[in-house]
């Protein structure tokens, strides 16, 4: 192998092969995948995320949530995703068409979050969990996100979003001063709105659970 140009050509073709196969072909195959229009309901799916949820997605991104939480449900029978209640059906490509950045994730140090909005619809739960995961999930190794909250004097009325901490916890951590409240910052509100928006409840034709067809004439 002494011919520089020939080696170079081989090197070029090698990567061109997978670039065409993995990147280009898939971009052509489903890079323009559209939302699904349901005639009975007269609207398209998936739902468009709200502006607040979209801002929350940026918080999710900047804090690096995806390094511990995946956002994909695998088909029944492959892993235990549906048995664990992480989703009623497998995730399909159409679920992600509105997502400016797709967070499929590769780790499950914590549970999958693809349907967390359906599994845990309470914003209050999420605020407590983000403030100190031990409050809602003792033994969790999730990082606390106290910096997404503010402890300040109540001005006028108490905020409707103020956290209700267990009395002994509040006392132990000096969060029981009368006239003070612990409230989520706008970033925390956006993040929780994003988490609550994560639910793939609509069943696309392609997302129906796969049932192997019995070959004709096969014994029952």
């Amino acid at each position, binding site marked *: 192998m002494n011919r520089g140009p020939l080696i170079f050509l081989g090197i070029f073709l090698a990567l061109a092969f997978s670039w065409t196969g993995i990147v280009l072909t898939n971009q052509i195959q489903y890079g323009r995948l559209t939302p699904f229009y349901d005639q009975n309901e007269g609207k398209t799916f998936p739902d468009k995320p709200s502006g607040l949820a979209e801002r929350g997605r940026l918080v999710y991104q900047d804090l690096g949530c995806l390094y511990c939480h995946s956002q994909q449900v695998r088909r029944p029978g492959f*892993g235990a995703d549906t048995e664990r209640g992480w989703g009623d059906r497998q995730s399909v490509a159409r679920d992600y068409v509105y997502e400016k950045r797709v967070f*499929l994730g590769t780790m499950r140090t914590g549970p999958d979050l693809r349907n967390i909005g359906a599994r845990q619809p309470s914003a209050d739960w999420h605020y407590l969990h983000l403030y100190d995961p031990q409050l809602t999930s003792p033994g969790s190794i999730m990082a606390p996100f106290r910096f997404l909250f503010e402890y300040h004097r109540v001005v006028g009325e108490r905020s409707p979003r103020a956290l209700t901490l267990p009395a002994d916890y509040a006392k132990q951590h000096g969060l029981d001063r009368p006239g003070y409240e612990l409230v989520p910052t706008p970033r925390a509100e956006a993040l929780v709105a994003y988490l609550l928006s994560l639910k793939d409840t609509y069943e696309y034709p392609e997302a129906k659970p796969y049932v192997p067809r019995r070959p004709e004439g096969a014994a029952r």
Partner: protein
Amino acid sequence: MASASSLAASLNPGTPPDTGSRAELSEIDASARWPVIVFLLSALAWLLIGTVFAIISSIKLHTPEFLGGYEWLTFGRARTAHLNAVVYGWSTNIAFAVAFWLMARLSRARLRHAGLLVIAACFWNLGVTLGVIGILAGDSTSIEWLEMPPYATPLLFVAYALVGVWAVITFRFRRTEHIYVSQWYLLAALFWFPWLYSIAQIMLIFEPARGTVQALVNWWFAHNVLGLWFTPIGLAAAYYFIPKVLGKPIHSYYLSVLGFWSLAIFYNWAGVHHLIGGPVPAWVISAGVAASLMMVIPVVVTGINHHLTMVGSFGALRYSPTLRFVVFGAVNYTLVSLTGSAMAIRSVNEITHFTHFTVGHAHQGMYAFFTMVMFGSVYYILPRILLKEWPSASLIRTHFWAVAIGVTLYWVDLEIGGWIQGLQMNNPGIPFIEVVRNTMPYLFVRSLAGILMTIGHVAFAVNIVWMLGARRPAGATAPTLFHNPPAVPAR
């Protein structure tokens, strides 16, 4: 048989040079001095920075309250700062340093335009610094292996363009007829990396693809950075240093050709195995699984070539630091790649996917293979560049044992822990929090392994700084070895 013997001589960097060419080599080494030193010292700084973030994130995973109040050090950011510091800071800088030196030596040409490379080093490190600070400040893109914010990456492109221009110039001025196997790998790596990186930047950040096509581009890139950038550089170094230190030719020329081309063809399809079970077309995953299994060919072929070159010379491992690090790396290359192929099989992947097993595997590849080969290369290159010997053999010994035990403990521990985690996660009868709790002992041992590796890195750094500060000896010196080999009695 004159042509055959000259072919053997050109194939084998271990052929004892005559006095004339020894002087020539030393001139080549001198021409590479500044770029190699600049890239090496930047790499060293990033290694230490990356280690600090590694320890912080490792501790956080079993003691989440550790530094829990600091937003910029939250796990998702500290871990990402670690990855980018060691991948783009340490590994890429050291890959550049070793690649330039190897390229100059193997082309038998003085390294021209060294200034170009020093400027490239400044741009590169400025880019990485800005990128890591950006991640800590909350500007991460959260795309695995591409987290640096878009204001940092153009600097990397400028740096890389300079490197590319330089590599082409050097290769064109080569003075050797034969192109040694290491050069194939270096050329390929220097060409593949910018292609991968620019496509990934465009399709993920500047003009993002729709939906899960992003995930395919992401893993096409992220796995190929390992397979088509770091692996070729590591293999180029192993192909050079094993025969060089032993003074005998590589086992088989034909195996090295087969190994190179099979790696080039199969590796670049393998990345999609990170998406097995995910919402992407099934055919592309199947293709990725097949390519991952086909990787057994280049791995076994390269393994045979490296390890059979070693056969009969294991005694040299007692003496030569370079050889010991490089051979440790080469053995781990074989192991980690075979594990990787196995992990792509769907039934195995069902268990290992989403667990700490993958983290252990990644560290075996990037550290036990690549980084160890780079350490070995530095032990060979730096004395020839500086014309001084390593000041302390015991620091080298400390370095070797601390990192060798540390990284082995690291990957064995996480692969066992990750396997158990995977089995339990697939058993819906075990509550999730129970699965998490059962990983804790393994996460704790991982921190201990990290501390061992940190000790090794400090020994390495102290030795380098000491060496830089030491005075150059007047006469000829003997290389610093672990032990001095017994003198050969005169016949």
